Each structure stands twice: as C-alpha cells, then as structure tokens.
C-alpha cells in the first residue's frame, strides 16, 4: 500500500470510530460502557476524531511520497499482511461495538467480582465486639464518638449521605432508585441496626454465590465509577421462605419489597431483606448505577 491509501483507510477507520460513538450516543448505550460524568471526554474524543478523520481524508489526496520533510519515521507498515493486522485491530472494536453494544453484565461477572463490602469502616471482629458490648439503644452514639476519638480523619458513611440518612431514619418505608441506590445500600450496610424493621423496595438482578442455601439470593446492580471495567456489585441479601425464591433464576431482574433484618454472612453482619413480594421486571434502560462524586461535607 502506498502512503495515500494508508491515509484513506485511516480516515475511514476514524470515521468508523466516530459512527460507533454517535450510535452509542443515539441509542443511549454509551452508559452501558462509561459513567455519565465521563461524557465531556467522549464529546471531546468525538470532535477530535472528526477533525483528525477529515485531515487524514484530505491528506490522502494531496500528499506525495516525500511530502513530510521533517525526517522522522512515520510507522506506515511496509508489508500488506502487517498493515492488514494492524488495521483489523482497529476494526474489531468498531464492528463488535456496533453489533453488541446493548449487552449488560450479569451474575457471572457479579460472582467474579464478589460482594462489595467497601464502605464498612471496621474489620469483622471489631464490628462484633462493638455490637456485643453495647446495647442497641446507645450503640449508635457510642460507636460514632469512638470513631471520632480514634481517628479524626475518618469520615463515616452517614457524613457522606447526611440528607439521605435523615430521610431514611424518619421514614417507615423507602424505595431505592437509580440516584440513591449506592448511598442507600452503603447506609444499610454501615448501620443496619437503624433500619431493621423498615420496609424497603428495590430492584436489581438476581445472583447467588456458591454455597448459598436455597432460600437465599442477592439482588443488586453494578455500580460504575468511570467505566464498566471498574464496576462493583451493590446489592442486598434476600432471604425468606414466604416466597419461592428458586423460581427466580440468576440474571432475572426483579423488584423486591420486604422488611430489613440482620444476618451473619461470612462473619460479616449484613442487612437482609425478608421479602413480602417479588415480581419479575423488564431490564431497566439504565441497568447500572453510578458513583456520586458530589460531596456535601
């Protein structure tokens, strides 16, 4: 291939990338790959790709072999086989992206990544000591003051979601939405005691870890901070024999309503939902939830 046709193929590939991004933007599938807060970067990329593509296109018609006199090596591959390989590397993501962009990660990835315990500030053993040492009424207060004394730099989950916490503590029943999903589950995992007995309504897909009893499953969603590759599972245990849980297979999307309880799971004390009703739902248009970066200290 000569220089000019290289430029032409490159401009077509850049156009392909542009089309891919535009297609994702139109269909909304872009949020199945990256978080909304990364969108400005995508628009930047799209416009740069458009400009580069145009430049490559016009360059392909005008430049003769010796036009670049700045003496450095542009790696325009010599052999036909090699350039075929290199260009197919670029073509693969464009083609597979435009064909299979609506896939959503499910239970097999959730099992790979495991349950997300991240927002718990203490190790399991400490947690147990505390909950056994203090009575439920004053437990909350003493725990908070302990933390403050131990390390002033520690910021608890309730500091992170102050309004959400107020709202939930006041309510007798609450619903998890896209916007409060991560916050609510963090709060529930942090101080399950505060919410025991309340009614919760949430949706998510079903998955089970190895060794779960038959009447136990997790309902959760992937939480994304930048792109799907860094996603983690946010979910709650659902357990109870009032509903036939085994009829909800892994990867089914469900809406669960139930009462918050506490349970011991792998030496962690975790919140659990005892379901009063479960129903199958369609997979939502935005199946993932996203990390909030706003911080109202």
């Amino acid at each position, binding site marked *: 291939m000569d220089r000019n046709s290289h430029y032409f193929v490159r401009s077509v590939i850049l156009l392909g990338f542009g089309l891919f991004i535009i297609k*994702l933007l139109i269909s909304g599938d872009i949020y199945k790959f990256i978080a909304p807060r990364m969108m400005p970067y995508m628009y930047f990329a799209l416009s740069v790709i458009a400009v580069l593509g145009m430049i490559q296109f016009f360059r392909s018609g005008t430049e003769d072999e010796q036009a670049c006199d700045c003496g450095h090596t542009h*790696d325009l591959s010599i052999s036909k086989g090699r350039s075929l390989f290199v260009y197919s590397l670029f073509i693969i993501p464009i083609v597979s992206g435009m064909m299979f962009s609506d896939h959503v990660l499910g239970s097999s990835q959730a099992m790979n990544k495991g349950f997300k315990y991240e927002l718990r500030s203490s190790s399991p053993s400490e947690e147990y000591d505390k909950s056994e040492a203090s009575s439920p009424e004053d437990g909350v207060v003493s725990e908070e003051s302990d933390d403050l004394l131990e390390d002033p730099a520690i910021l608890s989950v309730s500091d992170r979601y102050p309004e959400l916490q107020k709202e939930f503590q006041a309510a007798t029943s609450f619903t998890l939405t896209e916007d409060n999903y991560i916050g609510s589950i963090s709060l529930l995992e942090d101080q399950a005691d505060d919410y025991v007995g309340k009614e919760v309504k949430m949706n998510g897909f079903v998955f089970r870890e190895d060794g779960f009893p038959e009447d136990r499953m997790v309902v959760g969603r992937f939480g994304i901070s930048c*792109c799907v590759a*860094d996603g983690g599972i946010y979910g709650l245990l659902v357990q109870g024999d009032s509903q036939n849980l085994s009829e909800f297979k892994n990867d089914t999307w469900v809406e669960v309503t139930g009462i918050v309880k506490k349970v011991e799971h792998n030496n962690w004390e975790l919140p659990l939902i005892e379901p009063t009703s479960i129903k199958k739902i369609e997979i939502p248009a935005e199946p993932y939830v996203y990390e909030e970066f706003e911080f109202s200290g």
Partner: protein
Amino acid sequence: MYQENTSNYKWGYILLFLFFLIFIYGDLLPSTLITDISPAILDMNTIFLSIVLEAIPFVLLGVFVSALIQTFVKEETLARFIPSQPILALLPAVTIGAIFPVCECAIVPIVRRLIQKGMPLHVGIVILVSAPILNPIVFLSTFYAFQTDLTVAWARMGIALVVSLIIGGIVYSRFGNSWQLKEEKGLITHGPHSYRNRLSETFHHASDEFFDMGKFLIIGALLASVIQTFMARDLLSDVGSGFLAGPAVMMGLAYFLSLCSEADAFVASSFKGLFSTSSLLAFLVYGPMTDLKNTILMAAYFRKRFVLSFIIIVTIVVYTVTLLFDLFYL
C-alpha cells in the same frame, strides 16, 4: 500511478460501506448467536470496549500534547528548565508530574517526545511514574473512594512521591543518560516551517501517533478484558493476604487489570476487608506506574531491555516502600 491508487482505495471504500451497513443494521443481528457459544464472550467484549472507550479521549489528549511538543518546543528551551545536576533535576520532574493532570495512557507518548527532545532519561521516567498518581483528579477520586479512611489518599500521594524519586535515582545510576528509545537519536531536525504549516503538521503528527499507539492500547485492553472476565477474585484472597503476600498479590492484580488511575481507587476500595491497607496502597501506587497496557505502550517506544529493567525497578521499589510504610506508620 492513478490506476494503482484506485485499486488500493478499493479496500477503503469496502470498509466504509461495511461501517455504514453495521451502523444501520448492526443491532438486528441477535446476540444469542454469541451467547450460544459462550456467554462470557459478550462480557469480555463489553469490558474490552469500555476500556477502549474510556482510554481513547485520554490517548488523544496525550497524542496532542505530544504533537504540540514535537512541533513547538525547542530542544534548547527544554534544556534551560532542567538543572544539569542530575539529582537536582528530579525535583522539577516531580513538579511537572504533579502539575500535568494526565493519566497513564496519555503520559507515555508525552514522555517519549520529551526524551526525544533531549530530556535526560531519568527525568522523563520520573514524570512517567509520577504524573498518573500525583495529580489533583486522582487525589480526589481516591479521597471519595476511601471516605471512611482518608489516610489512604494522603499515603498514596506520599508513597508515590517517594517511590518516583527513588526510581529516578536508580534509573540514573543504572542507565545514566544513555539512549533508550527505539528510534535513532537526533532524527528530528525541523526546517523552518510557517505557522500554518506547523499547525497542520501538529494534526498530522497527532493522527499518525494515534494509530501508532492505538494498536497497542487495543491489544492491552483486549488482554486486560480477558483476565477480568475469567479470573475470579476469591482466587486472590486464597493466594494470600498476609504481610508479605498481600502487597505482592495486589500489585499483580494492578498490573493485569490495567485500570485508569482515576478509577482504580474504587476498585481498590472493594478489596477493603480482604486485604490490608498496605496491600491496597501497593495496588494504588503500582498500577498507575506500570501495568500490562502501559508495558505494551512503552515497548512500542523504548528498547525491550530497558522496559524490562524499568518494570523490575518499579516492582522492587514499590514493594519495599509499601512494606516499610506498613512497618513504621500503620
């Protein structure tokens, strides 16, 4: 001449037609075609595409800064800002690293260009390892990811600073100022260009480099997605979470996951409880400095031997420093 061109252009047109075809009809193909073979392939494809999509803006940014340096920065200007005393030269390097808000995909072409323009090797390497960590965006994301334990964010910055300086020192003592780029030294000699030419030249450089680098990015993303899809995390905690094994396991993970330094804090925080703080710090410091995707990018520009020694040096220094930190401060 004209005849030959059109025959080669043919492939471009076929490709163009293919893209438009898939753009319009791509969704009609049922994805069950793939799921019947293996459902994991679709997971892999999604993770692969998300890494590529996330990295592209930053690669473009890096490529552009690199092209601007190539076209507009003169060798003499660069030399004026870098002290001739090699150890002293590390300080402006770390400062540059801290000011440049670029992540690890973007920094490789920039550093390569700076070295090409006459920046001493060890100074370039210090920028390469410090810029992806020592920057405000990464500090903020670490801060948010570890809200319950703010020491992590500070320790990450502190360890990264110390580690980059040590790496710079070792690279200097081992390699001095030898030429470690693949290209011959002094190839770039710019004749007088008009301003307009320079601008279009910048764009030409940028798009050439996008294709040079893009292929390595795609290979790296592909490998990383395969590992992410098929490796269960439980495996890691089985391998070891002890004082010595923990940081080693997490560094291995950081290497193979090849996450963006802006996002890795969130992944690290999901390992809290499974691994010690020093292991998490090893993950957070090591990953941005070197990982699978970056190794492939670096191998495109630097000599293989140098890339290998670089990885060994970074690994040893990060491991030792995090263990020392664990002993004395945690």
